[in-house]
């Protein structure tokens, strides 16, 4: 039997999944697995067309934010907890970090399995802190106001131009805009969509979130034009030493290892909790990727896909060491690999306060509108309320159509 699997082109993930496929097919000689990896953002479009035209893969890896259309329209096959070696769905939930499986359960059935979750934390360049007379262990910012204050001390300007950014957040594409804007609007007490399902990002909370993001540019601790135009990878600036602080996800740790061996060897970076509007009410981001099975696949293929999913997620410590991906299972924290992974405790602590990104079949519209609004505000100095009103106008039109 041939199983078709689609994933995305994260090199470390491709390599590890290929290894897992080799193992699985060696154990199951009657199964062959054909893999097709496409770029992260193209996967969303390719999968949509393929699923719509009956040419989709038997199973796939997908960003959480792109799952709702398939989830709501029953295009996915249920994944049996027993096939994953759990006695029941409750037993599976118990093995995972609280709340990380619930979004994928409908009518008591599991339709996708998170294999690595993302949150966003703050990465610091310790050498820059020391150079500016700051102690990276004590003086790191806990609030967004402090990010500006500390950022000013770290920023270097030559000839009127910023040559080292005190702080930056990445917004190279809509997904990364979502990673910074949505936790901020949540921190401010709002959400992108209101209880009525309509756009709510132009609420006072949304305006506050956008004003905070604009403040880094207006206070001249960040030059948003430098990386946004050509960044080959997000969150690479901290690894390249051109920013002193940057928000990044767990993969950023691996970007530092591969792009700046000197920084990695000398341990001159630090990961601290994601800054807050009010540190007593912590809110962070929860995003990531899941494995899902095509609901149109035949019963015997679904059975094999479930078993292959079990194999894919069977070694969370390997996902961490080989891909720098944090599997949301409780057992991970106690492994030697987790203890050796820099700042995993901080990352997993941030994850505890994570809220899932916009969960709606119209999420692509919402995220694209967020991105346009952020570009208008941060790159072109448009008023936050005006930009978000425009975004909501676009989103509400999409929701109504």
């Amino acid at each position, binding site marked *: 039997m041939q199983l078709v699997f689609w994933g995305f082109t994260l090199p470390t993930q491709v390599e590890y999944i290929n290894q897992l496929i080799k193992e699985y097919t060696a154990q199951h000689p009657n199964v062959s697995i054909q893999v097709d990896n496409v770029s992260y953002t193209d996967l969303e479009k390719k999968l949509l067309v393929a699923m719509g035209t009956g040419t989709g893969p038997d199973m796939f890896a997908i960003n959480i934010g792109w799952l709702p259309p398939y989830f709501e329209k029953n295009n996915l096959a249920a994944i049996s907890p027993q096939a994953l070696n759990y006695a029941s769905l409750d037993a599976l939930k118990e093995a995972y970090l609280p709340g990380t499986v619930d979004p994928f359960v409908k009518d008591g059935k599991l339709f996708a399995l998170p294999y690595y979750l993302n949150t966003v934390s703050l990465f610091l360049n310790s050498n820059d802190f020391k150079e500016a007379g700051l102690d990276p262990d004590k003086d790191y910012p806990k609030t967004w106001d402090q990010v500006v204050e500390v950022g000013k001390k770290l920023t270097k300007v030559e000839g009127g131009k910023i040559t080292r950014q005190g702080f930056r957040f990445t917004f190279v*594409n809509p997904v990364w805009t979502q990673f910074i804007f949505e936790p901020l609007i949540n921190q401010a007490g709002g959400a992108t969509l209101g209880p009525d399902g309509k756009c709510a990002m132009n609420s006072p909370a949304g305006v506050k979130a956008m004003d905070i993001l604009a403040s880094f540019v207006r206070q001249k601790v960040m030059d*948003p034009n430098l990386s946004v*135009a050509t960044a080959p990878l997000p969150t690479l600036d901290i690894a390249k030493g051109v920013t002193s602080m940057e928000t990044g996800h767990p993969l950023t740790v691996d970007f530092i290892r591969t792009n700046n061996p000197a920084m990695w060897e000398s341990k001159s970076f630090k990961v601290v909790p994601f800054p807050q509007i009010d540190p007593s009410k912590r809110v962070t981001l929860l995003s990531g990727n899941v494995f899902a099975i095509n609901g149109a696949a035949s019963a015997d293929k679904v059975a094999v896909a479930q078993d292959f999913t079990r194999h894919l997620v069977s070694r969370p410590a390997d996902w961490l060491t080989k891909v720098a991906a944090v599997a949301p299972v409780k057992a991970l924290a106690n492994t030697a690999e987790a203890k050796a992974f820099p700042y995993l405790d901080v990352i997993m602590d941030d994850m505890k306060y994570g809220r899932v990104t916009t969960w709606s079949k119209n999420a*692509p519209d919402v995220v*694209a509108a967020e991105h*346009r609004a952020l570009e208008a505000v941060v*790159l072109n100095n*448009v008023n936050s309320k005006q930009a978000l009103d425009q975004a909501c106008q676009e989103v509400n039109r999409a929701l109504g159509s």
Partner: protein
Amino acid sequence: MAFLAPSLVYFGVFKLYPMTQAALISLFDYDLLSPPRYVGLSNYTSLISDPVFHHAIVSSFSYVLGVAAPVWVLALALALVFNRPGRVRSVFQVLYFVPAVSSIIVAAIVWKFLFHPQGLVNALLGGLGVDRINWLTSIDTAMLALIIAGIWRTVPYFMVIYLASLKGVPTDYYEAAALDGANTWQGFRYITVPLLRPTIALVVVVSVILTLRHFINPMLMTGGGPAGATRVLPLLIYETGFQFSRMGLASAMSMVFFLMVMVFTIVQLRLFHQMGQDR
């Protein structure tokens, strides 16, 4: 008929059938994942009051005007230069044609780097005392950057068309005009331009159609940003269909786009025909 069959089959399968399907789908609400639901003309009526669609039309025509109009002049000017004999000219002629045959994706990525705030374009302008321009991230300059890249890409193609046409103009006409005392400008004005009129009509019509369809540069260089400033109609149609999964609405946009191009082409051809008859 048998001679035409391959072309007819190609046109039928890859053009006519998809266009007919698009016209049909434009009458449905279709998200690819659920069965299509008939909605009549509501996709079309929603476009009448859709500011995003209107903005995309304006962006498209700004882009077309910005690229096509200079192309008409620059392509002809280069063709006139290269129409004269000379080995050096032949080398440059080949070099000038390179943009038309280079990979459009590679070219878009290279332009993206050239227009980076710390890229070559700003470095050259800096040498002239011009302050840093955020080409691709400013609402004011992003479209201009796309237009520059578009001109670079489009000029050589039309230069070759002009050049082929210029080769067909008999040199006797110029020699006779020179004997009558005509200068170079008069030769161009009263011999070259009238004889090139069919080619000029072709270049104007085809350049407008081609630039209206430009998609790769906005997609790769700006993604339609910043803040939707370079979201031309083909890009909006792509986003609406494949990103926001509203195939019915995207198809309606495509049909409106098709009608716009057709009307525009008919008007242009009529104008040139009229101009020809007036002479």
